[in-house]
């Protein structure tokens, strides 16, 4: 008897939570297919008159610069991710495979840095990016994404320990230098860790709003998130177009999630706990 009650309670709570999670998104999807008059005249729960009305999507994509936003996001993502992997793996390689003066100190420096929330130092970081001449260029974002990424160094460091040293040593006996060992043995063996980093970092970069908002005012360089924010201006009252723009930004992440679910969960557990 109690079992049946708790089981019912369990499913009721899951259904209610799912409604709370899906309803706000669902109503945006409905809105994105409505015409302007329809949006204003109908109840938010009313289904759109036509599910093939893609006009809002076309407007959002072209006039709102969403297409360009995706290109800009991708360019930053590609550069930052390559940098993060090389930098993180190099740091982990040095820290795990060598014993040298200052090793403890460097480790502690990375550890201490995790305690500094990025938002606190942004006013001061801004001056440095500005002084380096990177303000309003994509490099500002790329450098910041590479430089603040201590989590991936941890993930690489944790993973590096599981790569047997005998592999390096065997290569060394064959006369390979450290650079060759790094590129031909360490990096290929770090693949699962790299996948984790790519997923966490990729989602982070795709969703990042604060940094492009601050460092990249140029509308031609806008990534997806600031391009979406810009809809609040000229289209501020045209909710059907804003809705379409919102759906456009959600679709890629939904598709990715459906295909990579398991890896994404794993990525976040290992990323967050390290």
């Amino acid at each position: 008897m109690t079992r049946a009650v708790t089981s019912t309670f369990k499913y009721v709570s899951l259904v209610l939570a799912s409604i709370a999670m899906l309803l706000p998104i669902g109503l945006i999807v409905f809105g994105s297919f409505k015409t302007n008059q329809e949006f204003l005249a109908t109840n938010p729960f009313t289904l759109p008159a036509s599910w093939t009305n893609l006009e809002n999507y076309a407007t959002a994509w072209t006039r709102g610069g969403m297409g360009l936003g995706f290109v800009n996001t991708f360019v930053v993502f590609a550069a930052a991710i390559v940098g993060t992997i090389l930098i993180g793996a190099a740091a982990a390689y040095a820290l795990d495979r060598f014993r040298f003066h200052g090793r403890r100190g460097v480790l502690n420096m990375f550890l201490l840095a995790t305690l500094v929330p990025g938002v606190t130092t942004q006013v001061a970081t801004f001056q440095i990016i500005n002084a380096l001449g990177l303000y309003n260029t994509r490099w500002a974002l790329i450098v910041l994404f590479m430089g603040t990424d201590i989590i991936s160094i941890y993930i690489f460091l944790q993973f590096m320990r599981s790569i047997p040293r005998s592999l390096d040593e065997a290569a060394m006996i064959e006369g390979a230098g450290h650079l060759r060992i790094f590129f031909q043995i360490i990096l290929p063996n770090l693949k699962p860790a790299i996948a984790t980093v790519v997923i966490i970092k990729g989602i982070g970069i795709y969703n990042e709003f604060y940094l492009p908002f601050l460092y990249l005012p140029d509308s031609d360089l806008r990534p997806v998130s600031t391009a979406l924010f810009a809809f609040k201006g000229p289209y501020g009252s045209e909710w059907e177009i804003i809705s379409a723009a919102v759906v456009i930004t959600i679709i890629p992440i939904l598709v990715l999630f459906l295909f990579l679910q398991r890896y994404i969960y794993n990525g976040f557990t290992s990323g967050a706990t390290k």
Partner: protein
Amino acid sequence: MTTAPSPLRSGTAARQAPGAGAARGTTPGGTGRGPWLRRLTPYLFLLVPVALLLVLTYLPVANMFWYSVTDWDGLDKVKNFVGPDNYVEVFTEPDNLRVFYVSLYYFVASFVQMALALYFATILSFKVRLKNLWKGILFFPYLINGVAIGLIFLNFLKPGGGLDTVLLATGLDALVQQWTGDPDVANYSLAAVSVWRYMGLNFVMFLGAIQSIDGQIYEAAELDGANRWHQFRHIIAPSIKPILGLSFILAISGSLSVFEIPYVMTGGGNGTETFVIRTVWMAFNRGMVGLASAMAVILLIIVLLVTWVQRRVVPDEEVDLT
């Protein structure tokens, strides 16, 4: 630690216990190279990572302390030393202090968020129909862009929007209000949106921790007559203590660094201005870099203090980097 499976992982990880580092101390050396190059190698690999760390984390922190005692506007060549003036202004100007008060809404909300996450993580780590579907639905909002979430909820919470329609349809007319327009309500609404957004992350972290518990322990407990609550109390709760501690730290720095949702939804109006919104406005619109830096220093000190206290109260056994 959960990573995609690899044949290399099992066995080797266990052998590399902390403390073994010193024992295996010798450096693998390159053959036929000078010893100086061998000694230089680790430094060469660390050159770029450490340079970025210094330039983008430590230098800004140091500069921030320096700016906080000057009257710098961000452009001037000269920065005049003004001593503690900025700090005095932070603590005497109510508008500056209010942002810390606003973060309390998000901080309290993060406990609601953790409680919900813990509940769902617990029920979903046992037998449930459609497990993956529920997991996906609960986690997915976390992956959505903050701006998109802000816009989704502006649409949902506007007068006559989705929430009002639900309330009217269920006869709860009395509850209908200006969800983001009324200063008495706005922060609750925004904090609730924040719970909606981040619950999934806590949920997945807790789920990972609970699933790493050996299943045999439950079986043994069940034989001893333990019910679900006993199992939660004596098996699950103790074993996820480290991750609860981590979530607590994340809750604090998270509630102090709220930006996107209030910025998109209210622009910081109606008493919803947060620390980040205010410092951005002060530093970049009003040219008060010195004052903004003083606020940032105070925030940093709060975060460090709380983290330190938390570490004392819940010692984290997992931090071993070597």
